[in-house]
């Protein structure tokens, strides 16, 4: 019985030793690469490659701007950067010295895009600036993705193209 007890106890120990040896042997007996073969950032980047592939376009792009009745408006096209529906709960942006607010919450479908419409009360100087070429300043966005609330302010927005400016002068 002594032999059986001994064998029973030795086998798990051997299994652990063999597995640890195998871990080291497959990584050139280097402690660093056996503990962490790649940095967490590298693995994360590799994991997120398929996610990033869906978001080749910029997250926000200015589509249109102008005046409608007693209101000025700016529309932005927003692409979902993640494979899940993104709800833009509230948003505001500064352009031409006026604060534009998101008219209503919008849902950006997974891998798709949606139009965000911002409006501000009419302001003669802002309308003139818009005609000369609207430059969007600070954008504040409050979004929700699968229960996760993300709020960020961006100061760097995509500059309007010449075609955009021509369309705003209409």
């Amino acid at each position: 019985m002594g032999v059986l007890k001994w064998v029973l106890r030795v086998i798990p120990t051997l299994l652990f030793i063999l597995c640890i040896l195998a871990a080291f042997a497959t990584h050139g007996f280097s402690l660093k690469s056996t503990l962490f073969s790649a940095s967490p950032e590298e693995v994360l980047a590799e994991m997120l490659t398929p996610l990033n592939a869906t978001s080749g376009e910029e997250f926000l792009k200015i589509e249109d701007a102008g005046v409608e009745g007693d209101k000025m408006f700016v529309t932005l096209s927003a692409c979902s950067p993640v494979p899940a529906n993104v709800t833009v709960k509230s948003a505001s942006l500064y352009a031409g010295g006026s604060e534009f607010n998101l008219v209503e919450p919008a849902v950006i479908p997974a891998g798709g895009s949606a139009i965000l419409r911002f409006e501000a009360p009419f302001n003669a100087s802002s309308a003139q600036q818009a005609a000369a070429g609207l430059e969007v300043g600070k954008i504040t966005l409050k979004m929700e993705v699968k229960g996760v609330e993300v709020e960020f302010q961006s100061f760097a927005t995509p500059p309007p193209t010449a075609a955009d400016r021509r369309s705003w002068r209409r």
Partner: protein
Amino acid sequence: MTTVEKASERLWRRLNFFGVLAGILTLLLPFSGAWWHLTLGTDGGIFSILASPFEFKFLIFNKQISTAEAVQLSPLLWWLCLAFKLCYAYFGAALLAGSLLSLSEKHAESAETLVRFSSLKLLWLVVAFVVVLFIATFLVNSATQLMGGALIDFSIIGTGKFAMSSGNFHISAPINMGFTSTFAVAIIASALGIASRIYQKRISSV
């Protein structure tokens, strides 16, 4: 009752049913999935951790980290998980063999040795897993309290919250944690393991 029926009844009484069940469950547990989960967000969440002593899985938007990526993350951890899998499959097989071997009076002693050796192994693993989870959650909570800009408040069961601010960026999310049905199976198998040990003593003393 005839002599044959009496002999048959005596034989069945010698079979350690608890051990057979515990052995089968212990043998299957390493391949039955996670024992505990943590999800950041709702509706599947954006990030999940599935953990058991036999595996750690990370999911981002329900996309599971591949085996190759897991090996890359920490080869040693991956190989240790494999060692745990093999060891517990071995303990399950030993418990099953011991419980079945108790039918034979000739091998009664070996049967007792096998059952005594393997019956409580799963119980210790369950206890160790819960203790490690408590320690890990305590350390994570303490670490985030010491660091500014982030807050993680969670325990091993229930809901918690995660919040992080950095410059113009703020993120907050609910965290859901809980044990899975596989963990319940592990507890049942542990209880059966204890019962098998007690029953084996009774068989041996008869």
